[in-house]
């Protein structure tokens, strides 16, 4: 298991380098001059030329890339053109907010998704099943911005229960977390339901019942644990996706997170920030898939041994 994780970590370094190379050269292939975007309407040609030289953008691309990688190895990802601050500190600060949002969204999605999925499976074709599956379809198909706006209007604007946006208070994260986790909750509940229904029909479930296990015991200890294998994979991928930034949710609720930073980088053609956020997101996704693999191995020891 440890060896497997080490192998994956070594692979991850290669992936990160590849992604860095790809992003770096793609940003230089696309037409347009980032300095013009940075300096704005009022800058003259002399200023543009000076800034181009000062930012090293007049150097050959290979020289720029080598400098970038050398800096990145030392933790220096450059300075954001648009925010004028070190990219590493911007990502560090933003990740703290994204982490809070992602954890709350994931907890919401998983708790609601698993509970609804289990109830729907146990009451298959019953009224709770129809209600929860209807809701999950709603969750899967509703765009995040729509959920976010509805939550904002109802719970913040009309009822005044929660803040409309921003802030450091945990209350400020409730609505964004629900908006962000809504879609994931729908997916989790549907997957839990279908997997659980299949497992509840297995012979070993009948055996457990015949041994006198209570209904809840059979569902939780025997059926749900096995049903969790694909669900855990999905949850880990969801978590890594949430951690790599939620563009729409962070923008609507004014949360200074990784997603918003990435959008800002794209809009401002902010090359260092764009490279930094893209690399960071790749790192988080790799970490998420490692987590999924590790949990998979624990839940199904056969997988761990094979690995």
């Amino acid at each position, binding site marked *: *298991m440890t060896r497997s994780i080490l192998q994956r970590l070594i692979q991850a370094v290669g992936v990160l380098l590849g992604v860095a190379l790809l992003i770096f050269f793609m940003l230089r292939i*696309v*037409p*347009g*001059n*980032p300095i*013009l975007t940075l*300096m*704005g*309407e*009022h*800058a003259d*040609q002399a*200023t543009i030329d*000076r*800034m181009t030289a000062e930012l090293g953008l007049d150097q050959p691309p290979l020289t720029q890339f080598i400098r970038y990688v050398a800096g990145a190895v030392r933790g220096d990802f450059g300075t*954001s*053109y648009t*925010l*004028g*601050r*070190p990219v*590493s*500190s*911007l990502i*560090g*600060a*933003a*990740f*703290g907010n994204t*982490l809070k949002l992602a954890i709350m969204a994931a907890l919401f999605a998983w708790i609601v998704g698993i509970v609804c999925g289990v109830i729907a499976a146990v009451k298959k074709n019953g009224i709770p099943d129809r209600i929860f599956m209807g809701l999950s379809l709603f969750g899967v198909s509703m765009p995040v911005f729509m959920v976010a*706006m509805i939550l*904002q209007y109802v719970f*913040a*604007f009309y009822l*005044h229960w929660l*803040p*409309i946006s*921003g*802030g*450091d*208070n945990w209350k*400020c994260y409730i609505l964004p977390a629900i908006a962000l986790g809504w879609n994931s909750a729908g997916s989790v509940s549907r997957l839990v339901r279908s997997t659980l229904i299949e497992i509840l029909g297995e012979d070993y479930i009948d055996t457990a019942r015949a041994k006198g296990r209570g209904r809840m015991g059979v569902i939780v200890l025997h059926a749900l644990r096995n049903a969790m294998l694909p669900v855990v994979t999905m949850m880990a991928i969801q978590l890594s996706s949430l*951690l790599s930034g939620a563009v729409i949710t962070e*923008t*609507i*609720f*004014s949360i*200074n997170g990784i997603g*918003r*930073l990435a959008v*800002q980088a794209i809009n401002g*053609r902010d090359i260092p920030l764009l490279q930094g956020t893209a690399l960071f997101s790749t790192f988080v996704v790799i*970490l998420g898939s490692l*987590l999924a693999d*590790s*949990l998979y*191995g*624990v*839940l199904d020891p056969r997988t761990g041994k094979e690995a």
Partner: protein
Amino acid sequence: MKKVFGTITALALTASLLAGCGGASGNSTGSTAPAQGAAESTAAAAPAAVAAEDGLVRTAVLYDISTMDVAETSDNYLIPMNVFDRLFETRNVGGTAEVVKSLCEDYTVSEDGLTYDFTIKSGVVFSNGSELTASDVKYTFERLLRINHENTDIAREVVGGEALANGEADSLEGISVKDDTHLTVTLEKPNAGFLAELSSAAMGIVDAETMEKVSGFGKEPADTIGSGPYIVTEWVANDHYTLVYNDKYWGAEPSVKKLIVSIVPDANTQNLMFQNGELDLIDLQNLDSAIVQSSYAEAYKDQIVSTPKVGMTYLVLNNAHEYLKDVNVRKAIGMAINVDVLIDNLYSGNAVRENGIIPTGCWGHNDSLEGMKYDPAAAKELLAKSGYTDGQITFELALDSSANSTIQLVYESIRQSLNEIGIKAEVKSYDQSVWLDLRKSGEMDSFVARWGMDYNDPANIMATFFGGESQTKSRSINYPDTETMARVAAASSIVDDAERMTEYQNLEKKLIGEDAAWIPLYTELHQYCIGSRVASFTPQWAGFSDFYASDVVLK
């Protein structure tokens, strides 16, 4: 199970380590300085949900600033305007823009318009207690030139400015400091708009003594010291920044003691926050015009204040384009666009039609210019006169994809208007950096853009667009008349105001009336809505959105 716990713990630790990186470098992403003269602000507190308190005004912007230093930015002037003083300020006096003395106690100008003797107010101190002297004024000019990034154009007008900017001199020859309160500025050539230029946000006076000691000017609130009515106490990147009253300020004490500016990138969220009482002042230009009409025009009609956002929205037609080089085609295009309908339908009447180059609200604006009257039939006749048939003229209307939805509708409306007179214009959207690059190359066929005035002088727009070959090419105008452009460049040196205004008016008649060098469209009215805690607000005279916090009066 232990393995699961172990894995989760490891990942959580990694995550917290990464998050810790941000915390450890908090000074670079959001730093605070001790507040003076007002309550200490709470770092990273929920700015959007800050409760109303005495003297506090809460507002929001869509984007964060990149720096507080005007030597590094020609945008984002809210902090420079409020934290620094200039020798002069352009203030909205009874609805008219006037250049008024600020740090300048008195001044005289030589007859040739080249030499200015300034007397600086005595007794003015920066917020750290350091005295403001004439040497600080000289240092401010020199600093802009030594950094040589942004806002160097005004300082370059001083004798020796170019040499200092190019590293060929150690100091600015054209400024001599006589004593703590007197200095003389000598210009390379006369500039009647020099005092107006000194009132631009870029010319805020910095403290030479402090600047030698600090390293974070423009980035760190504690290092960004000015003599203005406010001190910046906090800037949390991408979240909010806070200004508090400077109790060492020499001028009248403002009603607003604390200003919190939240970065709220979603316009609808700003709208909800204002209506929920979480903002005291909202810039309605941040919102979609449909929201303004549906939610504000009636419900808040007594709380809306507006002023011309001094600047010009114009249509450029590349004078070197195969078809657009024909003046009859350019005039026909001008006559095919119903600007009044654009203003009524897309801006709900909240814009002023423009007929020249100098916009409404700027010194030298000519109200009597007739402009191009909407007349599609006459436009078609003009095209026929030049021998063009229906559909023969084609060109591209290049749209910056970051333009707001209203501007996108302006493009569509222009396309339809041109279609009606038989001109096929194709709206093509470009990524902003590509759009800027294409425009700068001089090869963009046509586009709509807006120029916001930096200071109250016609040279700021006339010379920028028509002051010479490089200026007209870099904006894809490619106006060919070098003689007229030389007159535009020379006009700023005319010392006599009446003579200069006459020259600008003649130039407008030539550039627009005769040559249709560009098609003037409109000046938007800049609308703000004030909340129930605000008694009054006088929007700043300028082509940009930033304002003086002291112009807000609380109930």
